[in-house]
């Protein structure tokens, strides 16, 4: 990869598509000598699939946390769907997060609930009626190929299956942007490819995806835009 410029000049309007998320000159540190992210600018356009690569500690997870409003930038602005992300505005953030889907390396499934209940949880906390929840959960599980495991406890599933449950939970609310934080980090290569294929299929149905990984081999499997973080700096956007 060659060192280059940011994806788009920071915070400029663009005619290349609707921007669903952007970071403008964002710096974030956690008290260390070097900032975790340093003056990062980035724009994600609707309907695109982005790989975000970088070694461990390069700031990939921090970037996703900034987009989710889990952490605040020290400097710069983070916008989601055109609105500034402000974690202090509880109701506004809840509304923005309902347009996001998030999946994690460690799945974050709740062990005391069945697969279906884990997926339903994302809708239950939004006050959606039970009948509708049931219908949407069935659809989501079907989409990830786990309808037959709806009543199973998550612990009884393989890693790949657990990640598919996590994906079902992320998409059941009908998000516009999927943030995938190292979703294949805990999986073997074959399962990783299956998960990537599943997310790629969702993208083909119109979902915007930001997929972080340290596994460059994965980025060669599907032709998508690649962003690279190195020591907290966004180095090189490459295009397929």
């Amino acid at each position, binding site marked *: 990869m060659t060192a280059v410029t940011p994806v788009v000049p920071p915070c400029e309007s663009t005619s290349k598509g609707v921007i669903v998320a952007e970071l403008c000159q964002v710096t974030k540190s956690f008290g260390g000598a070097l900032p975790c992210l340093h003056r990062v600018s980035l724009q994600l356009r609707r309907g695109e699939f982005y790989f975000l690569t970088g070694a461990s500690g390069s700031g990939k997870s921090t970037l996703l946390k900034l987009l989710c409003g*889990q952490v605040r930038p020290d400097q710069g602005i983070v916008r989601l769907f055109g609105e500034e992300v402000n974690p202090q505005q*509880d109701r506004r953030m809840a509304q923005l997060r*309902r347009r996001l889907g998030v999946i994690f390396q460690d799945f974050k499934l709740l062990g*005391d609930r069945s697969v279906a209940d884990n997926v339903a949880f994302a809708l239950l906390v939004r006050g959606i009626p039970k009948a509708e929840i049931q219908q949407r959960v069935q659809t989501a599980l079907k989409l990830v190929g786990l309808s037959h495991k709806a009543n199973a406890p998550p612990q009884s599933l393989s890693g790949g299956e657990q990640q598919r449950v996590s994906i079902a939970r992320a998409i059941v609310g009908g998000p516009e942007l999927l943030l995938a934080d190292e979703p294949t980090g805990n999986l073997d290569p074959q399962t990783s490819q299956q998960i990537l294929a599943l997310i790629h299929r969702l993208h083909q149905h119109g979902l915007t995806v930001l997929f972080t990984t340290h596994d460059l081999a994965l980025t060669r499997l599907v032709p998508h835009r690649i962003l690279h973080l190195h020591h907290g700096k966004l180095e090189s956007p490459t295009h397929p």
Partner: protein
Amino acid sequence: MENLSPLPTLDFLLPEVRRSLWRGGWLNGAAVIAVAVTLFIFGWGWQVSQLLGASVESLGNRLEITAYVSPTLPAAKVASLKEQLAALPGVADLTWIDRDRAWAELQADLGLKSEQGGLDLFDTNPLSDEIKIRAQSLPQVAPLASQIAQKEGIESVQYLERALTGLQSVQRVVRGVTFILVLLLSLTVVALVSAILRLIILVRQPEIEIMTLVGATQTWIYTPLFIQAASLGGGGGLLAWMVGWGTSQQLQQWLTQQASFRALASNVSIEWSVGLGVFLIITGVILGLVSTRLALQTTASMPK
């Protein structure tokens, strides 16, 4: 933008509260017992304070002010003085004992008749008219005595000032000690219950993180905890009342069996009322809610 429901639905709330209570395990029991012990002590402190206060109050009412009328006061002014005294604020009752009646009563009290000697020492009745005044309440006795002493025609005024002041001091001390005790115990309970809730929040952190990320508002996330804490507090209040009611029954029964306390037991009820029970439950609920607020302020994961 999706409309946000301001309050959690029962479909969400009831299972979450049940899960949270289940997760709390024995910590729930510890919280209930902590609240119960505090409210039990508070309940008895309240009962004793009320009993003592009532006793002091009733004793205070029996402490009369005795005023002696100057022998030089013209008979024509007696009626006017009576009216002035009766009109003083805080006077519950006023009895005028004229000097002849007082003299006759004194002789009768001593069991003497004039022909038996003794009182024949006096050629004339040496007593003056006497007025017995009862105040409406204990705090009014001292200022009332002072006002009576200033009236024209009053030679002197007597009341059990030292005893009265002492009783008032006891009442103040009892109230103060009860207040301080309750305050300290309440602070202890809030600290304890909030520590327990902090542990429960830590245990539930994965759920809280998921709820946050899928777009739940803080109200939805934390209402189950408030309900849990209120239930624990209310449960503690109920337990305190039940144990207090049981012990008060036993004590009342024991008092009636003791010869020396029989009179006291017949006049005084130490039974814990239903009203006190309701008060303790409400207090327990409030303690639970305050503890939750404190726990959230010190634990809630705010963005850094």
